[in-house]
């Protein structure tokens, strides 16, 4: 009990981790509550390309729609995509990684080889093909990203499982006659969780980057707002190189993406430092 308390203590005193955690919580709040308070930007209005003002906090786009409202709705999309991708990746990657690390034999070799190959194949072009064929809808995109995010998770899980299974307490648990499945999930997985958590935060961050890239390439969901969709529209309207420059249109969604990714990365690093006692 004492040890857990100290882990939590270290986490609270990790400055970067707290910045990351606050950032992530803020994004979650905005994504959950924002769309209830702010109506979905739709159609068009006459306030075209207005600079940031009291009426439009972050200006308006080429159709006269409020950028701030678009970003708030985009936050919800980003959260949805990250969480769904994470679930799909975890459901496939965790068991495969555990099996690959804990057992020895043909099955483990095959999983290892498949992971190796999937880590080499260029993923973005493959997800582009799938999204183009399946149709652009935000759930499809998240499922596709999840299907292709599991290999790195499986690899990380395998590596930490390999280390942990050599520990004496696992051997002791085996001697006590505890079943393999129980050892695997109750003792190995819990102790392997440090690097696994880090990888999960990385999966969430890179899901948002991939979704934004897909939307930017025109494979986004036309019925919802995402940060990538806003960038795509700004880019199609030549917003970066027109004079006078509507900088708020392309800069704000980019900053949202960067802040999101940095917050998740900071959180992941802090989790790693706290869950791994050697890193303190």
């Amino acid at each position: 009990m004492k040890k857990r308390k100290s882990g939590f203590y270290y986490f609270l005193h990790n400055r970067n981790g707290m910045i990351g955690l606050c950032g992530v919580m803020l994004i979650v709040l905005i994504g959950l509550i924002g769309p209830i308070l702010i109506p979905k930007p739709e159609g068009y209005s006459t306030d075209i390309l207005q600079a940031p003002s009291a009426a439009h906090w972050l200006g308006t786009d080429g159709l006269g729609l409020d950028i701030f409202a678009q970003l708030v709705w985009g936050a919800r999309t980003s959260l949805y995509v990250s969480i769904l991708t994470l679930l799909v990746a975890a459901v496939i990657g965790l068991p495969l990684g555990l099996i690959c690390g804990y057992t020895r034999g043909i099955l483990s070799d095959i999983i290892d080889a498949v992971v190796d190959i999937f880590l080499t194949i260029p993923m973005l072009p493959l997800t582009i093909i799938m999204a183009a064929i399946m149709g652009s809808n935000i759930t499809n995109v998240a499922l596709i990203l999840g299907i292709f995010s599991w290999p790195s998770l499986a690899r990380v899980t395998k590596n930490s499982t390999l280390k942990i299974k050599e520990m004496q307490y696992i051997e002791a648990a085996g001697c006590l006659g505890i079943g393999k499945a129980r050892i695997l999930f109750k003792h190995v997985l819990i102790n392997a969780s440090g690097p696994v958590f880090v990888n999960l935060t990385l999966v969430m961050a890179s899901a948002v980057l991939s979704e934004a890239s897909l939307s930017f390439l025109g494979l986004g969901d036309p019925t919802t707002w995402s940060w990538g969709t806003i960038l795509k529209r700004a880019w199609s309207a030549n917003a970066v190189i027109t004079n006078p420059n509507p900088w708020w249109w392309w800069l704000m969604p980019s900053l949202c993406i960067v802040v999101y990714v940095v917050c998740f990365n900071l959180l992941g690093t802090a989790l790693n430092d706290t869950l791994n006692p050697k890193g303190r």
Partner: protein
Amino acid sequence: MSRYLIRRILRGLLTIFISVSLTFFIVRAMPSDPVSLMVSPQMTPEAQQAMIEAYGLDQPLLVQYGKFLVQLFQGNLGTSFSKHIPVTEYLLQRLPWTLMLLGAVIVLVLGIGIPVGVFAARHRGKWGDRVVSVMVTLGISVFIPFISFLLLYLFAFRFKVMPTGGAYTPPKGEGLSYVLDVAKHLVLPTVALAVTNLANAVMYTRNGMIDVLHEDYIRTAYSKGNNEKQVILHHALKNAMIPTVTVIGLQIGVMVGGAVVTETVFSWPGVGRLIYDAVNALDYPVLQGAFLLLAVAVVVMNLITDLVVAWLDPRIKLGGK
């Protein structure tokens, strides 16, 4: 050496085979009709029938798979829906531009990343190292369209020193002026695509160098009377570069994905921009062909980095790893 090489080549071939099978089964596993994904409705009925027969689209799945592999082996990737030319021809026109971009990125990553990494390692903990590590943290989480937009805004729009896109200023020139023109157009896309890899290269070189500088053979090299420059260049660098080159090899797939976005933003006429155009024209044969070509490119580049790692680390040649 030969066993290591053969294992790597076999793995590369297996990767290509899996990529091929993935595209085949992805197209067939979808609820939509594969005929509509492979045969353009704008073709003449005879041409449509010829395609259906060549790929056996009216036959069982296994027969289709066999025919698909045979066609692929002959270099036939189908016909582009939008351009009405063979996909292979279309892709090969674009490939040199993508290879040029990737080559420039690798030169930049090695040429700047390694010296900066060595610099940070030598000044470990001092402010020079701290500045570098902040830049690395930002560089790793960068989003390619964002960095591209920033570069375009600053250098093409504000200061007007760089072109906004394309690979050359039309009409296409000749000789040295053409080369210089292309080089000028290459700068911004290269920088945009290189940022993430550059950050990785700096970080791994720095950490690798710090590890190596603690080794006994470095102390021996110093005690033989070498100065710091000699020790770093002749004794430490080759060993410190092993993790850097390994990580560049692992990141090549990601880099190729980034090239799709970069080429789109800068209208660079490579395979990546082709993918963007194919997405908007729903040109499925081109999409599949482009993915396969990129997968092959990644496998070949991986093989090259494996060879470089084997050269840097002679223990690998002996089968120690």
